[in-house]
């Protein structure tokens, strides 16, 4: 398990959630939905390192999705482990890509946007307007943002769905018959070091560990 260090360049708030910018070498950048574990290099170590997700890419570095601990300040050095786990896999043939984060920040889905646009997919983002307005950078003009109420119609339109619903997948999504994936929010204390089982997810194919087989799972596999 490779451990590396990087500097936290900046921290800002988006609708109350702490987002960060990490000076991150290209070969250590997690793809959408994959994880990092991080802890401040100086000061008393936390009981467990913090679980981090990519939330976008800027010229200066990697955006870390909401959830940074209050004790982190801009400028500190982080010790990091990862990327690990299995992230989103955008089907190359997807033409109507639906990103659905109806309950909270859409940050963890944003890294999919440049990939989708690069393969000339149309992209729709379902997201609460407050979170949308709070984003530090506007969405690319080609991306359509719609509120959670519009999710049902968007599902009719989509041929690929990427969902991030920490409070649990709504029925609408679990019952969707199309091709899609969901990022499942579970604790990952051992970060794939110990088969500790805290991140276990029950799938049609049996128990899976989110830190290894996930945290992104195919919607059809989720029991």
């Amino acid at each position, binding site marked *: 398990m490779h451990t590396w260090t990087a500097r936290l360049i900046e921290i800002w708030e988006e609708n109350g959630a702490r987002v960060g910018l990490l000076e991150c070498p290209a070969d250590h950048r997690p793809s959408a939905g994959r994880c990092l574990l991080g802890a401040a290099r100086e000061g008393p170590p936390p009981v467990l390192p913090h679980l981090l997700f990519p939330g976008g890419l800027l010229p200066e570095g990697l955006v870390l999705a909401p959830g940074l601990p209050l004790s982190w300040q801009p400028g500190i050095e982080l010790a*990091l482990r990862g990327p690990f786990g299995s992230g989103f896999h955008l089907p190359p043939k997807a033409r109507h890509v639906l990103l659905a984060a109806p309950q909270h920040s859409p940050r963890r889905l944003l890294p999919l946007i440049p990939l989708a646009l690069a393969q000339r997919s149309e992209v729709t983002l379902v997201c609460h307007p407050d979170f949308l307005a709070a984003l530090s950078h506007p969405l690319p003009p080609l991306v359509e943002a719609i509120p959670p109420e519009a999710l049902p119609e968007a599902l009719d339109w989509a041929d690929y769905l990427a969902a991030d619903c920490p409070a649990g997948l709504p029925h609408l999504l679990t019952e969707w018959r199309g091709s899609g994936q969901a990022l499942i929010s579970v604790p990952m204390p051992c970060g794939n070091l110990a088969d*500790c089982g805290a991140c276990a997810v*029950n799938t049609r194919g049996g128990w899976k560990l989110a830190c290894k087989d996930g945290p992104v799972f195919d919607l059809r596999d989720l029991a």
Partner: protein
Amino acid sequence: MKHDLYLASPLLNAAGTLGFSPRAGLDWLGQLGAFITNPISLHHRSPAHDRTLIPFEGGILLHTGLINPGLRYVLNQHAARWAGLPVPVWVHLIASGPEEAAAMTRQLEGLENVHAVELGLPPEISPAAALSLVKGAHCELPLVVQLPFEQAAQLGPALKGSPAAAFSLAPPRGLLPGQGRLASGRLLGPALLPQALNVVQSLAKAGCPVIGSGGVTCGDDLRAMLEAGAAAVQLDTLLWGLKGPGNLAASIPAEGWGFPLQDEDLDFPPALENQ
């Protein structure tokens, strides 16, 4: 023939902290005196339906349900890897009764590089039931018995005449509000250190060879455990941090520590004699 409980380093991992065999690339693995496996039962155990992780001041409450694929599967997948490890392997077993314990330990005898069995005891076990479980697990390999934290001071002395070569400590249990109800689980983290030191000292004073664990995060903690009478020390959540054991090995006292232990040392191992 029994192997001695010999350790080249007093640092161990607690069962459940490094998997069934260690991940490739753990460059600090050689600092450990032995690698201890995750808990293994005879039959597979799936995750507890109410598994949870809840942080509290100085620690975490963790409940997973002793998830493991069962002994046969583990041996298929991992026994060959154990043989090739740079450190000895201790296999952690959980058993529902003495016969099950016997059936499991029998399968471990003769496995290459397996140097000991660590037997977990279920919480709230009576001294009599513990004794019969320990007798069931008796085999050619030295037996380390992991005592429930809350009963350790009572169970250790009660098991002194048993085949146990040494004792270790399971994390204490706790209760915390989570997801609308009180959730039960094991407690881990630096908050546990003062109580763990207390239990270790009380076992050591009672003449029980004891492997300390609970909240060790730095050299001072390690030295305090050895000073309290621990013959060796298991690390837990520290190993899930980003520095592994860090430079803990530098804090091992040059004058040595409790092991090597032999079964005959049970009542007064060298390290505890001078207390």
